[in-house]
């Protein structure tokens, strides 16, 4: 049997990779994908710790996280389309209207 800490450790590594993706990439779509990696890392921790405790609440949380992720993807991609239409770019560096 695999100790639970292995799963949680894997979850931590995947999460950090996702964070790095958000910070390092300029393409908004890839940033979005990195966010999905972070969400999945957290899901993995939920399921693994739930299994350790013999509880299924973690799995219900994963269900909700997936729902939110789906909603977020739909709205987020729509925003990307709208932005692309106006600015002709999906480069995060060039989307700096919040500047002083």
């Amino acid at each position, binding site marked *: 049997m695999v100790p639970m800490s292995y799963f949680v450790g894997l979850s931590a590594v995947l999460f950090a990779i996702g*964070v790095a993706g*958000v*910070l390092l990439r*300029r393409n908004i779509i890839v940033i979005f994908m990195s966010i999905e990696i972070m969400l999945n890392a957290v899901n993995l921790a939920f399921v693994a710790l739930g299994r350790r405790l013999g509880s299924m609440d973690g799995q219900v949380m994963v269900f909700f996280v997936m729902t939110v992720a789906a909603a977020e993807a739909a709205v987020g991609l729509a925003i990307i389309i709208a932005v692309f239409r106006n600015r002709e770019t999906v480069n*995060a*560096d060039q*989307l*700096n*209207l*919040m*500047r*002083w």
Partner: protein
Amino acid sequence: MTAQFPALALILLFPAIGVVFNIFVGPRAGRNAVNVAGTGVIFAAFAVGLWAFARLLAMPAGAALEVTLWPWIIADQFHTAIALRFDALSAVMTLVVSGVGAVIHLYSIGYMAHDEDYARYFAYMNLFALSMLVLVLADNLLLMFVGWEGVGLCSYLLIAFWYGNAQFAYNGRKAFVVNRVGDAGFILGILTMLSALAAHGVWTLNFAGLQAHAAMLAPVATMAGLLLLLGATGKSAQIPLYVWLPDAMVGPTPVSALIHAATMVTAGVYMIARLHFLYALTPDAMHVVAVIGGVTAFFAATVALVQSDIKRVLAYSTISQLGYMFMGVGAGAFAAGIFHLMTHAFFKGLLFLCAGSIIHALKGEQDMNRMGALWRRMPITYATMLAATLAICAVPGFSGYFSKDLILERTFEAGDEGLWLLGVITAGLTALYMFRLLFLTFHGTSRVAPDKHVHESPPVMTVPLIILGLLSVAGGWVELPPGWLWGGAFSRFLMPVLCRSRSQAAHGAAGGALGVVAMLATLTGFLLAYILYIQSPALPGRIAARASALYHLLVRKYYVDELYNLIFGRFLFWGSTNVLSRGVDSGLIDGIVDGAGLGVEAAGEVTRRSATGNVQVYAFVYLAGAVGIAAYYVYLVMVR
């Protein structure tokens, strides 16, 4: 015994409706709507007052109607509510305020017929009626204070009604500031009483509650009484705070009649009568009240002798008559003081309205030296003014006779012979200056500018004159000398509320003799006025020239304004300009404010560099925060 009577709230609701209507709708609704609404609401309040009065008469003596509208301040043990109380004293005041008020509102329709700002005028007048009714109906000192401040505000607004004139606006401010001094005394008096009661664990400012615990007030009675008296002298224009009232005459004349003669200025007398149980504990404070009243009465009467502005004469006459009322309540004759308050509201209100009628006819002329021989052209005004003059001079049968006589008699009975003598002399002076006014305006030779077309006022102004004229004649008949018909009905009505604090001895033979002396003084005054202003009109000028020092002293009003200006005005002005304005405000406060602004600006100049607009930079900062928080948890784990 008390009974709930929710309709009392209507007495306040109607004027409140008038205020809201005249402020928000009035200017667009037109003159007729404003006239009807502004006047109608006061008549409606008067009608409700009569209804409540009928209910009160049907109940046993000493009863009161009450209604609690809503809780107001609830702080630990101290509870106070917006609650109204309609007992005999409040009943008299309510009927006088709403009744005389309604008549004067009616008169205002005619007086303000040519003024463009009629909606604002009626809004202020309704607000005044509302505040005054709150003052007299309040069942606790705090709510009374609300009304007290409200009437002060309305007084200021209406004195400075024609604010385009800088002098008028200044006079309004003067009234407001002088009243502030008195109001400070009033609120300190309230707090003194509250702290004395709180020491015994009693937290109340209800009049009923205060009266029930009057014994606890005994240690502070003199101090509280004198502080409250300071408040009363401010509002009721007594020495030393009377200086604002003569200058208040620049407001529209109906305002002078309603606020500065009939109602607001009597608030101080009402307050002392309302707190009679407090003053009963302290003969010293009572004596101070009586002395202030007597001295003010005499002092103001002397100044009234030489003034040439018709409204100023009446203003000093008001101060003098208020002095009589203070004399009365100071002698423990609270009912007599309130009685004179009522009759004074009738005849002094009428005198001002008559003066207003004359001023209206002469297109704003107020100087009596430019009047004369008007009686043929203004017969109704002349007849009513004559009635009011006879009433104020206490001619037997007229209303003023009963009330002023009662006060003088009670003062004598209380053992203050000196004050009584002062009162009698003042009665003679009253006759002198009132008939001087009457003769100078209506008799003698006409000194009216020839281009003025003098005419009698329209019915909307003369009907109020006639109503108040009838009341000036008959208003005193509610309190006849004992043994006559219904006798002292007014005193009996008020007695359960005001209780007998001093000798209520039967009017003995002394009463008759005292009355004769006072009457002789009045007659002397009348004869002097006749000789000086009808028989030989040149004589006053010669007397003034002979005794020029005295004359100037009187014309300049004993130089009190100059004295106050020197003592308080200069000193305060210097301090305000140099210390507070230049030093504290410009230097300290502005420095702090500017410094804060500059500091923020500088900080923003630095920190705005961090706002690059790049989302990833922001996310980086976010991550740094998250790592920091996680580091804190790591630290916790490691330590454990």
